[in-house]
């Protein structure tokens, strides 16, 4: 692990080692309390889970090429799609942006030495790894076949698979989220540098503040719910199973009470990244800063009141459904406000087409489609036809992959020089972003049509409707391109650690405290505690026209040599 960043002493800074050079032993990483090193630990671990989840996804797409399956039994297929969902949601999407980029950036952005509770931060990583290992051991000892939603009474009474281990894994990982959430809330409240007022905070920090509130309020509910499934499964105490006197729909209420807000846990941090990228690469202040802030907070609040839109056909009462549908339209508005504000940010800007911004543009395209197709599902009567079909699958992949992963990759590229001290190949970066965008659409656009045609989700075989095959083939072809789009960055980013150009303190010409310190930062972040005197994103597009861009003249692509 000590090879990360290939540390060499930066002559400009003199003798002081940066955070990567500050200790090379395994213990110096595994027992670190430095938020930046913990971020690197998270980066490596979420990447491993992303790879595993992606592997499961490619197996799913391969299997669906024919109506009668290719190589799996239905039992195996059910375990694979469950593994894909559980890994991607609990062990990748939820922690990805907050735990990697958030951990690294929040103290830097607000001018702090570290998070408020560094030990708790490290502990959260151990809980994450513990939960992850429990989840993995469930998969290795036979897998689980309930779907990531664990619907009762299937999960509590009928499934013959590793339900308990998986539930325990998600339960333990939940603590990791809660710890991180608490840490962020306290840090943002108490550790802002002098002059860093609430409305000078970067929007990235605001989005994490909103996310943390959801995490702290929501995660305990799902944790308890999953435990109750365990209680019913092991001790046969009737909670959800009608055979034991329980109510199966109660589980759905409790589950979605968390799992709908969890969607916002996944997307809000990505929105924070996108705000930073639009400002930097347009060299403009984010348009309507206050509206974007309040949109984040509105999403956090309203997000808790719409869970019933997952349950329109569940026998939930009609009047309940009406209220949930109505509120779901309201929660769509803040997201729309954000998109319009980002677009307006570009007006009269000085725009640079560098890798992170290409991801940001991709985010806009995909998130807009993802958001708008959500309206079909918030609408009760179209929901009846579309729910539990591939339409839903396509919709949430547009939001989760098109939104969260594009945001994560955009952010990772943007702050990569800060985190590692190395530049990557802008050429390969842009290429990968575009392949991802095209591959993504090819994968998931056909699934909207499949869903409208009536293809139910979680189907191993579609032998009753073989006419669906053409769309499945297109989708699988797209998945191959998408996989390539994800693999290319893995290659050139890794290579950049060894032969990437050394990054300056501020290679993108960005504003924000994190760019005022060297790359990679010192362990103590700031040599002098910073004092903030200006609003966030104090860009001047006219001046920016005169700037020399460091990366404009990209050298020979590093990855090309590999």
């Amino acid at each position, binding site marked *: 692990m000590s090879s990360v960043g290939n540390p060499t002493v930066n002559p400009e800074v003199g003798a002081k080692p940066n955070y990567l050079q500050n200790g090379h032993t395994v213990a110096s990483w595994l027992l670190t309390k430095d938020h930046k090193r913990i971020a690197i630990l998270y980066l490596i671990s979420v990447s491993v889970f992303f790879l595993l989840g992606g592997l499961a996804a490619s197996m799913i797409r391969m299997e669906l090429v024919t109506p009668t399956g290719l190589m799996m039994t239905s039992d195996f297929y059910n375990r694979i799609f469950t593994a894909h969902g559980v890994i991607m949601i609990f062990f990748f999407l939820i922690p990805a942006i907050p735990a990697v980029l958030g951990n690294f950036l929040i103290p830097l952005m607000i001018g702090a030495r570290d998070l408020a509770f560094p030990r708790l931060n490290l502990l959260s990583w151990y809980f994450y790894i513990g939960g992850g290992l429990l989840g993995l051991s469930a998969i290795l000892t036979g897998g689980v076949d309930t779907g990531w939603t664990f619907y009762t009474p299937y999960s509590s*009474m009928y499934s013959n698979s590793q339900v308990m281990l998986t539930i325990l894994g998600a339960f333990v990982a939940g603590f990791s989220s809660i710890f991180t959430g608490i840490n962020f809330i306290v840090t943002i409240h108490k550790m802002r540098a002098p002059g860093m007022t609430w409305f000078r905070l970067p929007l990235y920090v605001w989005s994490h503040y909103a996310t943390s509130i959801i995490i702290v309020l929501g995660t305990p509910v799902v944790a308890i719910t999953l435990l109750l499934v365990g209680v019913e499964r092991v001790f046969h105490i009737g909670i959800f199973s009608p055979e034991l006197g329980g109510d199966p729909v109660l589980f759905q209420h409790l589950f979605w009470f968390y799992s709908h807000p969890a969607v916002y846990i996944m997307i809000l941090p990505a929105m924070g990244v996108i705000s930073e990228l639009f400002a930097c690469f347009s060299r403009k202040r984010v348009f309507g800063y206050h509206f974007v802030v309040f949109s984040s907070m509105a999403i956090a609040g309203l997000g808790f009141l719409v869970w019933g839109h997952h349950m329109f056909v569940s026998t939930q009462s009609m009047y309940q459904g009406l209220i949930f549908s109505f509120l779901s339209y309201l929660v769509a508005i803040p997201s729309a406000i954000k998109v319009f504000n980002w677009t307006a940010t570009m007006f009269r800007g000085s725009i640079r087409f560098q890798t992170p911004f290409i991801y940001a543009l991709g985010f806009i395209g995909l998130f807009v489609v993802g958001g708008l197709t959500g309206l079909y599902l918030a609408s009760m009567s179209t929901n009846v036809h579309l729910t539990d079909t591939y339409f839903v699958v396509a919709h949430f992949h547009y939001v989760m992959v098109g939104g969260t992963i594009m945001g994560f990759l955009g952010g990772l590229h943007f702050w990569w020089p800060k985190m590692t001290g190395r530049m990557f190949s802008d050429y390969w970066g842009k290429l990968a972003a575009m392949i991802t965008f095209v591959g993504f659409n090819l994968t998931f656009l056909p699934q909207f049509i499949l869903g409208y045609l009536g293809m139910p989700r979680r189907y191993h075989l579609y032998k009753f409707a073989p006419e669906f095959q053409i769309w499945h083939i297109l989708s699988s072809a797209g998945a191959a391109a998408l996989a390539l789009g994800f693999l290319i960055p893995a290659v050139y980013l890794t290579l950049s650690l060894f032969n990437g150009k050394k990054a300056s303190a501020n290679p993108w010409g960005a504003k924000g405290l994190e760019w005022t310190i060297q790359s990679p930062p010192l362990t103590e972040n700031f040599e002098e505690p910073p004092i903030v005197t200006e609003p966030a994103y104090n860009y001047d597009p006219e001046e920016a026209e005169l700037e020399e861009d460091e990366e404009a003249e990209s050298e020979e692509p590093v990855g090309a040599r590999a």
Partner: protein
Amino acid sequence: MKIPFVPERASNFAPEMDALFYTLTALTVIFTVLVGALVLFFAIRYRKGSKAKRSGAVDSHLGLELTWTIIPLILGLFIFWWSAKLFIKTRQPPKDAMEIFVIGKQWMWHVQHANGVRENNEMHVPVGVPVRLTMISQDVIHSFFVPQFRIKQDVLPGRYSQQWFITTKPGKYNLFCAEYCGTEHSAMGGYVYALPKKEFDQWLASGGSKKQPPVSMIEAGQRLFEQNACGNCHGALDTPKGPSLVGLFGKRRTMRDGTEVDVDDSYLRESILNPYAKIVKGYLDTMPEYKKQLSEEQVLFLNAYIKSLGATQAPSPRTVMANTGNNK
């Protein structure tokens, strides 16, 4: 090879549902193109080095913010209103709807017609006649989904759920289970056959596809009633041993704890399987539980028989729906 884009429209709900679907699609395309075009236009016009004007841009503009808050809000509320109206319609079956019973179990659909004709993984329905499905699961949650009818309803263990529709053209349509239910989830399906009314009546009268002389549900229920000696306590008149079941269906009863309950299918089912859940005022806990002894199918038979014992007045479908849980 024909590439499918649109599922057939074969029910009374399909045309309006599709109109809503295409309106939403139009909105999606318009907004995606609008945002995409603006982003591309700005990206090209304001790329670094272009001669475009850059001075004087504002950071914030209340008018603009209100515009792009209020317009989507109005559009959203319009869609909500339209969609809700249609949804309410899908929850209110006409009084004269023909009733078909559906039992979901791992991994098949069992269909039961009132005259006793039974089908597995197939369902025959008449064209142009309102059909009401009363459904229950014997194990986990399933979901009854016919894409060409644009209907879907979860089928739960332990409680009845309902769905209604009118088929508008003869044909063979997909029947899927849409709620993940275990190993053979994707094999839990079959077809719905919509027959012209005359043909359907003939089909039904001649004992369905298997041509077996059917025993009607009421008759089957009566046999069960006798086999289990229910009549020992439930006679023609109320006795201290048990209330009479004659004319019971559709009435409102007062329970021991003072709550009032409408007697519908769900209540009858519960009182047979788990009688102590609700006890009518003035009676003791003397009835045996039939929880482990009767299948969901047998309960449907018993219900049919009890309902045939002179329902004083047919309960309005709204009341029945309300008490099955999905129309409150």
